């Protein structure tokens, strides 16, 4: 044991110890100074302020929040907003990014040139500038009364974007839980079979069919009907559907556009990393283009794409913090307001940094699990 620690610690023990002690002393000095300053301006250090009531409104939040609720709930609302925009951003940026990346590889000169310019412009201007631009655009949209519908039911207005919403009518509450359960069950089924090495096309198809059929059966049996609610103009405003605030719409658009361009580059680099010889060899074996992409190119390209996309997701999550500059109430914005109203800046920033470290760590663990699945068998560590 002692040997192990000594080997880990390595040489130059006194020097290292002195360095670490110096860093620790500097940190202690800073903290002592902060506490002293807090005492001087009459602020009690600690997280007790979380239970006192916050006297500000939050523009939008997945959970109900009114002025007078606790700071804890305010920060939770901010965290949920951050998670919402990051998650949606990652999904949409991936879809758009893959599409743009493939379009950029197209042999069509016009399309690939356009994609090139889109990527260069997006990559070479600051994200904050793009967010300001989207925000200015969102504010310049027509008022609800003048707005015309896109595809019949999407309204772009200066009060936000209205899109159709989906809901279940008349169904028992247990339905949603049942749907989730069957989905998880068939996922578990596939994973177990796969781990046992017994996953065949037949059992896999069976599990997928089961996952699809179960909710349908529930729908028929319980009498619940999914209902789409379309937004429509009534009076001076648009009612019904789902309203995305201008801030949320601008932030989401900005993040998705910027990161789609980055992901498109990653996809292009990944696909181009597979040598042309692979294509030729696969063609010689008589595979057609779809098969080549699915069986030969994609598995190899994913090895390049996955780690790079992971860091894009992490960056997107961190960059969602720019919300504070355009007034979307994300975690950063609410923590900042909290720090300003309570004076508990140290605690507020500890919460902020802790939350982002946790999200980043969780996301990178998740993506590393996936990366290990696509990585070369020999290069697993």
């Amino acid at each position, binding site marked *: 044991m002692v040997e192990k620690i000594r080997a*880990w*610690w*390595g*040489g*130059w023990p006194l020097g*290292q110890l002195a*360095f*670490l002690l110096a*860093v620790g002393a500097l940190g202690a000095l*800073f903290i002592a*100074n*902060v506490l*002293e*300053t*807090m005492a001087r301006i009459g602020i009690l250090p600690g997280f007790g302020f979380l239970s006192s009531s916050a006297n500000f409104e939050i523009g939008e939040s997945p959970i109900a929040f009114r002025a007078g609720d606790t700071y804890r709930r305010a920060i939770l609302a901010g965290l949920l907003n951050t998670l919402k925009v990051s998650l949606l951003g990652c999904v949409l940026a991936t879809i758009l990014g893959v599409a743009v990346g493939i379009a950029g590889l*197209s*042999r*069509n*000169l*016009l*399309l690939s040139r*356009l994609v090139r310019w889109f990527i*260069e*412009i997006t*990559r*070479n*201007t*600051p*994200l*904050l*500038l793009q967010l*300001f*631009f989207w925000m*200015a655009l969102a504010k*310049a949209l027509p008022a609800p009364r003048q707005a015309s519908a896109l595809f019949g039911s999407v309204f772009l207005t200066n009060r936000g974007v209205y899109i159709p919403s989906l809901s279940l009518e008349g169904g028992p509450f247990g339905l949603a839980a049942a749907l989730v359960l069957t989905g998880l069950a068939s996922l578990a089924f596939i994973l177990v079979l796969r781990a046992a090495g017994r996953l065949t096309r037949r059992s896999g198809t069976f599990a997928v069919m089961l996952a699809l059929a179960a909710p349908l059966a529930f729908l028929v049996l319980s009498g619940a009907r999914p209902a789409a609610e379309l937004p429509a103009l009534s009076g001076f405003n648009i009612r019904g559907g789902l309203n995305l605030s201008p801030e949320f719409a601008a932030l989401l658009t900005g993040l998705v556009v910027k990161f789609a361009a*980055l992901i498109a*580059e*990653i996809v292009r*680099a990944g696909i181009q*990393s597979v040598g042309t010889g692979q294509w030729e060899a696969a063609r010689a074996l008589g595979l057609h283009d779809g098969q080549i992409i699915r069986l030969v190119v994609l598995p190899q390209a994913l090895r*390049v794409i996955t780690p*790079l996309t992971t*860091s894009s997701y992490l*960056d997107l999550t*961190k960059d969602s*913090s*720019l919300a504070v*500059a355009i007034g979307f109430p994300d975690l*950063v914005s609410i923590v*900042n307001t909290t*720090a300003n109203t309570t004076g508990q*800046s*140290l605690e507020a*920033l500890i919460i*902020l*940094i802790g939350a*982002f*470290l946790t999200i*980043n*760590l969780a996301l990178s663990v998740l993506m590393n699990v996936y990366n290990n699945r696509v990585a070369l068998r020999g290069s697993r560590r």
Partner: protein
Amino acid sequence: MTAGPPRLLPALRAGLFGTRANTLITLATLLVLSQVVPPLLRWAVLDATFSGNAGACTREGACWAFVAAKLRFILFAFYPPDLQWRPVLVMLLLGAILAASAVPRLWGRPLILAWPLTILACWLLLQGAFTATPIPSNQWGGLPVTLFVWALCLAAATPIAILLALARRSTLGGLRTFSVLYIELMRGTPMVAILYVAMLILPMALPDGLSIDKMLRAIVMVTLFWAAYIAEVIRAGLQAIPHGQAEAATALGLGYWRTQRLVILPQALRIVIPGLVNLAIGFLLATSLLAVIGIFDLLNAARAAAADPQWLGFYNEAYIVVAVIYFAICFGASRYSRWLERRLAGGGAGPAPAGGTSATSRKE
């Protein structure tokens, strides 16, 4: 690309209408373009106002008269106009040192010494040294501030990053752990949060008598933040150097520091230079976040220009000007990075790290 006019046309025809699918794609793209381009053109050129005052501008078209009137403010913000030659000189100095750094033949000791001297000169110039009244940093603004903060933070972060990367690769467990924790902490935190630490915590953490201004606090924290990102790029370069190099140096009787300085680092840094250029481009874009804590960098100055009561609301025009400036700098730099990558790969500078320097790894 090098095809002359005679071969251009067939290539164009094949590229646009080669197959039936290709023709369809071309037509669909043209259809989309026909919806987007004419209104944009009408706004930017046909309906635009090019001179006169705010009253002459219509809301239908762009107001380029605004840009003409406000360009000085966008570029220099609140810097005293009669001393404007100072920020202009700062931009020239920074441009000169960047241009010199871009030439591989000049890489060497004189350049390393020239960097701190240039930055010091810029600092003195901006501060208004040798004038009757010094110019406080809250009057600095615009493009010189963006470039200056960027260059200063980059120059200060690089030596820290080299030490962090060496510590992370060393056999000394204590230092290694410190380095890993530091790098992961910084890389897991958004830059906005780091700027808030500079704004809110740093003033409280400093001893009573000592207070430093907002600009300097931001520079300190941003330097510490960027060092973590640069350290990771340098680590990739260190990993690419075969172990035999260090062993050979040790066999020749070189100690640890001389081995690193004379053998390992020159090779490692040369490999990662394209990666560092990409990172630097990302950092230049990231300096725009200084707007969040109220520093009048280029972007914030443009926003303030559009908030002028006499020229209220020409945000789009202001943002376009800023976008063009950023684009010109960053696009040029990324072209340079491509060129450098090819040159270094051809120049026998050692193996390029796999995937490490691809154009995709860029941080903002």
